[in-house]
């Protein structure tokens, strides 16, 4: 079956199109991290006093911590003093008021990425917050969202304009003591998105943040906070890319979601950071803490992720199901190729009665990559009639890659039903033969099988992202294959 192996390789070895660098004048802090840097950062961002204290508290705690080693990934220790913690395109005194004031180079960069910041453009159904290195450069459709009562703005703006919400919710899901990277993030986070959906509001459009790392030797530390008040509904998308560089860059983000009574949050990610070259040189270290708290009864949070980029991915979007009847979902496709390493999965903590969670994880491992699913399902004593269904499937392409499954299941409530199932296999020759025998080329057959393998997850993505995700996997749409 060497012919078909060739086809699979062709499909997977697509070049990284987003690897360009934008030449810009930037304000960049010199490398290094100490309390002075944090003071300076807080000052540059014009933050209220309580934030500075929060950052310093986090920084002091971070200094007492050690970098975790339990994950199934290998990398050289990171020199945190060799990273610059702030880099932003140079701008006028008060920052851009409208799109006209944004550096045209930045606009051009986003255009090249296919993310038009121009509100008149085709993607009119989506409001975009564009984060370039350490700052948010533009947020579209602010006016229209404001009419609906929705707050969608860079988090640095929210710190100034909505301190009461920040004080109440920031760090309430991921405290600064949570883990090494969360502590670092709490100390030095630069920007990110802030979303607040008021009571009973269904957000009129999809919200989206597009993260771009551009500057060299910087780390991106973004912080996203989404609050869905009672009975509200929001769908949020996130995309990310970075230039091709030989050095590894660090991306340590924290995302906190809070769903109150009857609220629904749908969070989708297409992660396409630069994965490094074929020899495993360069690429982004993507160490992310994402967690949702379903605080109210009947709250629902759904995570969908398509992870194709990053040299190392280390993230576990989690749900704390506190309210009764709360629902947590996790749908994931993780593709690793060449020397990429992914250790990803989810945590579902069942606390409320009748809480339900679904985990569907699809891992595809090719080249010399290592792809690990790591997940925790924990049912506390209070979670009567909790229900979990977990399915983890891995597909292996090539004989040098690895696929691993490490689920943790802890149940303290007898009325809970917990199921976990995992399989690992390669594309079966029988399946390929069957397709070819029906007149499909080997390429189409592989494409169709891989696409079918991931379909359960792709169908959870919003339309535009589903298209992008499929394109990312180098696969044509199912319909066009027949």
């Amino acid at each position, binding site marked *: 079956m060497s012919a078909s192996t060739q086809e699979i390789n062709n499909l997977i070895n697509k070049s990284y199109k987003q690897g360009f660098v934008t030449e810009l004048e930037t304000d960049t802090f010199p490398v290094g991290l100490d309390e002075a840097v944090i003071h300076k950062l807080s000052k540059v961002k014009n933050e209220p006093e309580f934030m500075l204290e929060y950052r310093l508290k986090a920084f002091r705690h971070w200094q007492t911590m050690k970098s975790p080693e339990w994950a199934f990934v290998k990398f050289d220790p990171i020199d945190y003093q060799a990273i610059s913690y702030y880099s932003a395109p140079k701008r006028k005194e008060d920052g851009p008021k409208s799109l006209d004031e944004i550096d045209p180079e930045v606009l051009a960069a986003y255009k090249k990425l296919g993310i038009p910041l121009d509100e008149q453009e085709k993607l009119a159904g989506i409001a975009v917050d564009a984060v370039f290195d350490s700052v948010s450069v533009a947020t579209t459709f602010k006016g229209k969202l404001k009419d609906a009562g929705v707050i969608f703005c860079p988090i640095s703006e929210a710190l100034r304009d909505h301190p009461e919400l920040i004080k109440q919710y920031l760090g309430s899901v991921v405290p600064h003591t949570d883990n090494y990277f969360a502590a670092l993030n709490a100390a030095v986070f630069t920007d990110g998105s802030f979303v607040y959906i008021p009571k009973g509001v269904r957000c009129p459009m999809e919200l989206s943040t597009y993260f771009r790392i551009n500057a060299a030797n910087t780390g991106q530390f973004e912080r996203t906070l989404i609050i869905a008040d009672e009975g509200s509904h929001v769908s949020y998308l996130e995309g990310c890319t970075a230039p091709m560089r030989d050095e590894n860059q660090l991306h340590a983000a924290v995302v906190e979601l809070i769903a109150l009574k009857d609220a629904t949050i749908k969070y989708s990610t297409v992660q396409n950071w630069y994965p490094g070259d074929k020899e495993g040189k360069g690429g982004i270290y993507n160490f992310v803490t994402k967690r949702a708290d379903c605080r109210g009864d009947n709250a629902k949070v759904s995570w969908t992720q398509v992870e194709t980029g990053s040299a190392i991915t280390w993230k576990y979007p989690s749900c704390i199901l506190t309210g009764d009847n709360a629902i947590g979902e996790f749908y994931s496709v993780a593709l690793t190729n060449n020397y990429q390493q992914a250790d990803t999965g989810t945590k579902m903590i069942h606390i409320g009665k009748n809480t339900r969670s679904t985990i569907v994880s699809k891992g595809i491992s090719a080249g010399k990559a290592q792809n690990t699913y790591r997940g925790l399902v924990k049912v506390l004593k209070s979670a009567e009639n909790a229900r979990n269904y977990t399915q983890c499937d891995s597909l292996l392409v090539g004989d040098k890659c690895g696929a691993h499954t490490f689920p943790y299941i802890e149940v303290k*409530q*007898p009325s809970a039903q917990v199921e976990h199932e995992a399989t690992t296999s390669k594309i079966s020759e029988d399946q390929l033969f069957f397709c070819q025998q029906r007149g499909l080329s080997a390429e189409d057959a592989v494409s169709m099988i891989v696409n079918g393998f991931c379909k359960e997850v792709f169908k959870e993505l919003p339309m535009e992202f589903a298209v992008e995700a499929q394109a990312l996997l180098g696969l044509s749409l199912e319909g066009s294959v027949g």
Partner: protein
Amino acid sequence: MSTVTTSRYVTEYDAIAAKLPGQNLPWLQQLRKDALARFSANGFPSPREEEWRYTNVSAIEKKLFSPVLGFVSHPNLQTVDADWLKSQQLEDAWSVVLVNGHFSIDHSKLDGLPEDISIMSIADALVGAKNFSPLLETYLGRAVNIAEHSLIAFNTAWFTDGVFVYVPAKQVLAKPIQLLNIVTEADAMATTRNLVIVAENAEAQVIETFAGLNDAYLTATVTEVFVDQNAQLTLYKLQTESEKAYHFGGTYVKQAKDARFTHHNFAFGGLLARCDIHTELDQASECELNGLYLGVKRQHLDNHTRINHLKPHAISREMYKGVLDDRARGVFQGRVIVAEDAQKTDSLMNNRNLLLSNEAEADTKPQLEIYADDVKCGHGVTVGQLDEKSIFYLQSRCVDEETARNMLTFAFANEMVDKIKIKSLHDKVLEQVLARFPQEGVEKDWL
């Protein structure tokens, strides 16, 4: 356990070292020395170690059990009720008895054992009985490394005796061999090291049973098993320690090409019991691991399995079932590793848990680690309740609900009991299972 303070066991070690077997063997002295150094450095495993995440053995450090020394081959058994001892021995097997960690020839029944099959005290074998010493040097510590975890190091440094079983090539044993481990003294510790070698094309069945009087004591046993080319070994383990006892039992297996290994693990006793079963598969070898753990009261039962597929075409099957009542906690950690070379591996792992009470807990961690591409691997885990539809079905056939539940729970456990092929052992295990289901309606005609 804290790594700063040295374990109290280490400070006691010097006093007993001279009485441990194998003083005249430099290689064993070195092995013990390395193991002691490792144990002194690390102490007992801590829940911070990934493989010990759900099991905390710090009570063993606090209790300070002491080894029973001073007699080697004729332990004083006057305190042991002869009838009780007899009840622990299986009638259709050759049996050897280990009392408080020492081989007791007086209580062993080996009549009719073919001459070329060796079953003897490992302490005797070490001092040169039947010239097995070089063989021991080759095999001891080969199936498991002291670096694996501290309890291995502990066992290696402290073992007082054990059983050495050698089945030569092409021998098919007519009867199973029972290794009966009993502890009769409070606060004693029985550290035994067994070595089982089944040579080419041979076939054997070995039954390890553990029992004790109603005291707090520690059993820490390690069994190394070598199944040679095309040989077959079925190993049963019936652990019915006293309800205050601490038990650690590790079985480490190396399978050669085409070797077949089956393990049946019944974990019923002990306050805290941890069982390791690790096996390494060579080309086209097969292994089957079955387990049943029944936890009541405050029992903590941990089963830790590892199947390492090193070469192509090997097959592994695993099924562990747990029934947990009262405040019991059941832990299952199963790991399947498929090496880069091990193409065409076929592996399946299952763990099913039934929680019967609000206070019971099940923690399970099945793991797949796969480095080859042409493999079929799967695992499944469930934690939950009896199927309501099955209960309804039985009720519709005029069985009351409680009886229906008991019947289904029993049937859930009995599936594992029915896999036992040795009559006397089957009956003994069944008796143990039934003792844990005292409710009306279980022991009925339908059995």
